[in-house]
């Protein structure tokens, strides 16, 4: 599978907007949208857990070319905490309960729009990585914290 392209991110944005999905980019892909220079293999989306949002999400994913069986669609609609999709046009992770963030609403209230992409605030991205406490997060956190300082200082320029 090829890498996740900007055009595909635009397609997510448009499809999710059409289906009125409540979501945020989170994780490294969110940080990259904020301007963090690093690499990632997939996109992580923090999705609000509700029946309507789940149904809309399935419809949008199918529209984007994800070949979901009825069982898989049902698992997404039921609101599993973590769903990994590897059979679409790009790799996507759906995260409904990211470590370190209590409620979607809290993250939404702090979120940032980058060229109409809804993105978690850098503090939530860092907080979530801190709480997950994986080896890969430990390695990336010092640079991400340095980026936070830079981003906070320069975001309105």
């Amino acid at each position, binding site marked *: *599978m*090829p*890498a*996740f*392209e*900007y055009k595909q*991110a635009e397609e997510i944005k448009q499809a999710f907007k059409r289906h009125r999905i409540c979501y945020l980019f989170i994780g490294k*892909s969110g940080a*990259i*949208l904020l*301007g*963090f*220079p*690093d*690499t*990632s*293999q997939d996109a992580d989306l923090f999705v609000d857990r509700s029946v309507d949002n789940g149904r809309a999400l399935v419809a949008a994913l199918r529209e984007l070319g994800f070949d*979901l*069986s009825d069982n*898989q669609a049902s*698992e*997404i609609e039921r609101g*599993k*905490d*973590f*769903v*990994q*999709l*590897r*059979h679409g046009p790009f*790799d996507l992770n759906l*995260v409904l*309960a*990211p*470590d370190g963030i209590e409620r979607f609403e809290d993250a939404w209230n702090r979120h940032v729009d*980058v*060229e109409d992409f809804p993105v978690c605030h850098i503090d939530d991205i860092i907080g979530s990585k801190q709480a*997950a*406490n*994986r*080896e*890969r997060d*430990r*390695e990336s956190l*010092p*640079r991400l914290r*340095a*980026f936070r300082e*830079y*981003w906070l200082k*320069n975001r309105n320029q």
Partner: protein
Amino acid sequence: MLKDTTRSEWLEDFEAAARRPLAQGWRYAFIKTYKPVMDDAKFRAFDTMEDYRRWCEQNLPRWLGYARV
């Protein structure tokens, strides 16, 4: 403790990234390499994050870095 040189190199990276249009930065940022086990299934769903984290620890090669510290 971070070295001052590391910090200043990072700062240069951040400033260079800020000068790039988003679409261009995106092209540099997203890469695809095969991750053993992780990429071998087309779909996985976990009831809880704890289930997912445990699955990663029990199934993925350690060097991928998904194990908790």
